[in-house]
């Protein structure tokens, strides 16, 4: 079977039809979720022209170099390429499929293991149908506060929609958020009257004005809020608060730059991209579709391990502050949790633990998870009144648990550790 249908290998110049095919290929990629714009299509045609069409491999890498610009896109590209450029007639079929009004012919069996996104891209309409069919009847939710669920519940969650008044309130509350995180000095400067450094450039320009002496201008480092990484527990014991936290993460993502949001229960999901959408309902819908372990068990140690290995080096740069939201109740008896907490603590500038259990005055770090985590946090915050976003934000803006109390707990822990 000829890999490249519309060009003779010797000519090395794409004909009109090959150019068309590249355009359609780009459309397929775009529907599959790659960010492909018209500029890239032009560049791809130009690149194919330059590289020639001698070998299938070269053609592959030529298109790859233009269309792929993140590592995680490689899989989708690879599958799309092999399906698309294998059979010229398949191509026509797929074009039919891309047009919604044309009936969708059945696809051959061998495409079963294709990624879901690509399948959806190749056959719009078919991808959605089964989802509705195997949607299970709504399950009765059991309030699991203070219990650690052993089941890994894989279910999608519907969130109540926020009313416009609520959104407005939330935005106002966010504006008042004062996370007690100090601004970070950057290595950039801004003009200032009393800055410690002389701004020579500004001084010299000033010197050209008709006055006698050179008047020194000064500058000082700019301050900027540090990047914020939110790690949010969404397991069964936290289920009551999850909605609020998601709204909070959405609001703060859209309020400032450099915010990364992760959820964890039995597995870790990065929902930053989904939350970046301005529309809160749409963003939460996208995020909740992405997360699979709503209200299940908790494996804090294991998910933190995944975060440390896979993400910490990518999101914890430039003095990041980590906001860890969890009750610290771990299904696996806190296996490996202390080590992972230590690593996390050492790789960020500040680790803030937000614990809903702390609203009870008589809180003591009794559970194994709590004991393992407590020595490795910089700040321990109670959360009262979690019924509204404003309440959560107010809680974040108050002062953390006094150092004395934290120190006392730590000392008790050490004592009980040495007794054992």
């Amino acid at each position: 079977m000829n890999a490249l249908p519309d060009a003779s290998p010797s000519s090395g110049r794409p004909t009109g039809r090959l150019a068309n095919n590249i355009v359609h290929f780009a459309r397929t990629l775009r529907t599959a979720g790659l960010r492909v714009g018209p500029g890239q299509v032009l560049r791809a045609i130009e690149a194919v022209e330059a590289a020639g069409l001698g070998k299938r491999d070269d053609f592959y890498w030529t298109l790859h170099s233009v269309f792929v610009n993140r590592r995680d896109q490689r899989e989708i590209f690879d599958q799309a390429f092999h399906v698309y450029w294998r059979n010229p007639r398949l191509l026509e079929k797929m074009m039919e499929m891309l047009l919604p009004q044309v009936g969708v012919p059945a696809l051959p069996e061998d495409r079963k293991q294709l990624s879901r996104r690509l399948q959806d891209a190749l056959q719009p309409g078919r991808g959605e149908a089964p989802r509705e069919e195997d949607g299970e009847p709504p399950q009765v939710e059991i309030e699991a506060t203070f219990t650690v669920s052993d089941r890994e519940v894989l279910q999608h969650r519907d969130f109540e929609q926020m009313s416009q008044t609520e959104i407005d309130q939330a935005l106002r509350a966010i504006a008042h958020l004062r996370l007690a995180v100090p601004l970070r000095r950057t290595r950039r400067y801004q003009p200032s009257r009393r800055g410690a450094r002389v701004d020579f450039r500004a001084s010299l320009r000033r010197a050209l004005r008709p006055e006698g002496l050179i008047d020194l201008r000064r500058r000082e480092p700019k301050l900027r809020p540090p990047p914020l990484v939110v790690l949010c527990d969404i397991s069964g014991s936290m289920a009551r608060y999850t909605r609020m936290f998601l709204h909070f993460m959405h609001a703060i993502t859209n309020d400032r730059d450099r915010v990364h949001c992760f959820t964890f229960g039995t597995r870790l999901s990065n929902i930053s991209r989904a939350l970046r959408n301005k529309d809160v309902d749409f963003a939460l819908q996208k995020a909740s579709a992405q997360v699979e372990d709503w209200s299940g068990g908790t494996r804090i140690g294991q998910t933190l391990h995944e975060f440390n290995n896979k993400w910490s080096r990518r999101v914890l740069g430039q003095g990041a502050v980590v906001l860890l939201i969890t009750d610290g109740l771990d299904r696996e008896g806190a296996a490996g949790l202390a080590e992972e907490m230590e690593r996390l603590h050492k790789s960020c500038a500040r680790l803030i633990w937000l614990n809903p259990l702390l609203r009870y005055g008589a809180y003591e770090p009794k559970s194994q998870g709590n004991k393992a985590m407590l020595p490795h946090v910089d700040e321990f915050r109670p959360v009262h009144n979690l019924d509204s976003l404003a309440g959560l934000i107010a809680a974040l803006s108050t002062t953390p648990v006094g150092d004395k109390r934290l120190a006392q707990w730590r000392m008790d822990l050490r004592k009980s550790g040495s007794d054992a």
Partner: protein
Amino acid sequence: MSSPAPVSIDATLELLKSGDYIADRSLATVLYLALKLGRPLFCEGEAGVGKTEIAKVLSETLRRPLIRLQCYEGLDVASAVYEWNYSRQMIEIRLAEAQGVHDRGQLAADIFDERFLIRRPLLEALSPHTEGAPILLIDELDRTDEPFEAYLLEVLSDFQVTIPELGTVKATQKPIVIITSNRTREIHDALKRRCFYHWVDYPDLERELEILKVKAPGAGERLSRQVVGFVQELRKLDLFKAPGVAESIDWATALSELNALDLNPKTINDTLGVLLKYQDDIQRLQGSEAAEILRQVNADIAAQPLG
């Protein structure tokens, strides 16, 4: 004089090989396109897989000057593009005053002159060179902050920079631009779109063997085979930092300096620090796990002796 750019993908592969860089075909394809179409090459990958090396080898084999811009947080125009030589300018002003020059316009033209301009890497790369267009290596772009990235966008699309006092400097010959990133943060899509993107992966067994043959010729065939087999196995483990090609080369060199002809568990334990750079990883590997991997590697070698 500089050598001409390669005329085909195969020629690119040969060119890299002549500079002791064993590339796979995907890299050669992307590099060929970048050279041919005059667009930057954006290389991402784990530390120690040879991203920076690409630029060095290109500069050597094409005989072009290499201009390197090492990125760091807070990198600004003054240290990346140009800076005025302020102390000399001040002296010039004093001299002018002493000579009784009172025309401000004349004075401004005098002190904002090319003579007082300090060229930094980006401006240097846009200036004409007798040896042909230089190679501009923008190393570890992920270490800078977003504002600099945005500035770079302008430079890389038009190959020109604007100095308010002098005017616009446009490159007469486009430099060959290689950008590397270790992914300590995501680079914005807008910048990536202007480049050819390549994820530099760890090499497979054959290619890594070939690399060792060129880069660590002191190590014997059996030792190299064991080293590569061992390192390839390590990369499959869930380590905090898997060893890169640079580590394999260092390890093979270190072992041959120690006159080792054959890997054994004791040598591995003693030299593990060359390969792994995190205490957790070293601790995990030391002892039985390393011995187990070595046993498996030796079994593989026995099953498939090198031709």
